[in-house]
């Protein structure tokens, strides 16, 4: 009987265990910034392992979203390197820098999400998300046709006249000899 009971207990599937939430804290700075279209800026996140166990492999991933109007955002255009892998001992903290270029005008939010990384990720782990970085991008035409036009027209014109003068002068001198 005891043998049967042990057999049944070992055969039964183990009850589902809720995945432990990631014990990390993410802070970000600056929390607000203003720039112009095409401007480059950098945000820094500090990730701290607040738990009592090592974090294991974790992945910090940057994302950008439009929070006003209907501006299409392709985060890859904003930053080519949006993922950074790390692992933290209990109490350890690490600073990560994110280089970003504003490729759309409007009002955006940039944020970093921390997810577990590796083949043993169950898929139901909780994520940790940084506070939003509020990004205001002003539309600005940095260059104007009117500003460039005098140089664009005058330089070739003057050089063309000089070249023609020298070229035909040289030919005339050649034919006179």
């Amino acid at each position, binding site marked *: 009987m005891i043998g049967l009971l042990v057999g049944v207990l070992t055969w039964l599937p183990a009850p589902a265990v809720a995945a432990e939430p990631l014990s990390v804290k993410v802070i970000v700075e600056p929390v607000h910034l203003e720039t112009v*279209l*095409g*401007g*480059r800026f950098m945000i820094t996140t500090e990730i701290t392992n607040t738990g009592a166990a090592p974090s294991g492999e974790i992945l910090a991933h940057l994302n950008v979203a439009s929070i006003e109007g209907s501006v299409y955002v392709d985060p890859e255009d904003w930053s080519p390197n949006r993922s950074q892998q790390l692992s933290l001992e209990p109490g350890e903290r690490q600073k990560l820098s994110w280089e970003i*270029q504003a*490729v759309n005008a409007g009002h955006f939010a940039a944020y970093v999400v921390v997810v577990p990384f590796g083949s043993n990720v169950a898929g139901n782990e909780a994520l940790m998300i940084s506070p939003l970085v509020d990004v205001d991008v002003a539309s600005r*035409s*940095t*260059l*104007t*046709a009117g*500003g*460039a*036009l005098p*140089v*664009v*027209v005058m*330089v*070739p014109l003057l*050089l*063309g006249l*000089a*070249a*023609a003068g*020298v*070229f*035909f*002068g*040289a030919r005339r001198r050649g034919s006179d000899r």
Partner: protein
Amino acid sequence: MTLQVAPPAVGTEQDRRTGTQLQSRWLVVAEQECRDLWTSGRGLILVFLFSVLLSGVTYLTSTNQALNFLEQRESVNLVLQFAVAVGVLATLVVSADGISGERERGTLETLLVTPVSRRSIIGGKLIAALSLWIATFLVSIPYVWVLARGVGILGRALALGFFVGTLVAVGLGSIGLLISAACNSNKTSITASIFLLLILFAPTQLPSGLPQGWFFDVLLRANPVASGLAYISSILVEGHSWPQDLALLITPLLTALIAGGALMFAGPRLVRLTRGVNAG
């Protein structure tokens, strides 16, 4: 080229002056070559075409909405890289005509009987070719000024363009003269030089979205043109300090030293009349 050099003086004074005269004769050759290049109108026509191209690029950068999206520093970088690349191309084309052109026009024999060493001839021709690079750089100044004003990078952009461009121009100008000295036909020399330049420019045209592994990095660093242009970008666009990416200048520097050295040592043996070439 018709070179007018005074015959060497006779007597003891000559002995003392010979060294100085030989040293200064490359300047005579350089002066004559520059006069040929610039008073014939050839140099000015090349510079005029260069300015037309640069005008097109600058206007496009200023007006095209897609390009105008670029940050102003990137516009400056784009125009400066274009100016350096085309300026170096013009230098290479002129130097590729240096010796093979003289052979083909039948003027090399006259040049070789003048009391000027072959090394002086080569040095003078290299300086004449580099004068075209200097001219294209001077022409590019107003374009860079139009794009860089207000961003505070005008001085840095010009100093960077001149420094990197001169380094690359010396290297490629020397290679062009070596090719020219080794070729009997001017067509072969110029075609080989342009083909070489296309090979060197190809890596700079790869789409930036392509995965850039170690092979791309090796390709970039082994190429004097691509690594020189990458150095300009790293300072102007990415805001790096001058010493930070100095390793990118190793290849342009080595090219200038090796090609320039080879030109000075092997050049005198290569500058000679060859069989089957019209000697006038």
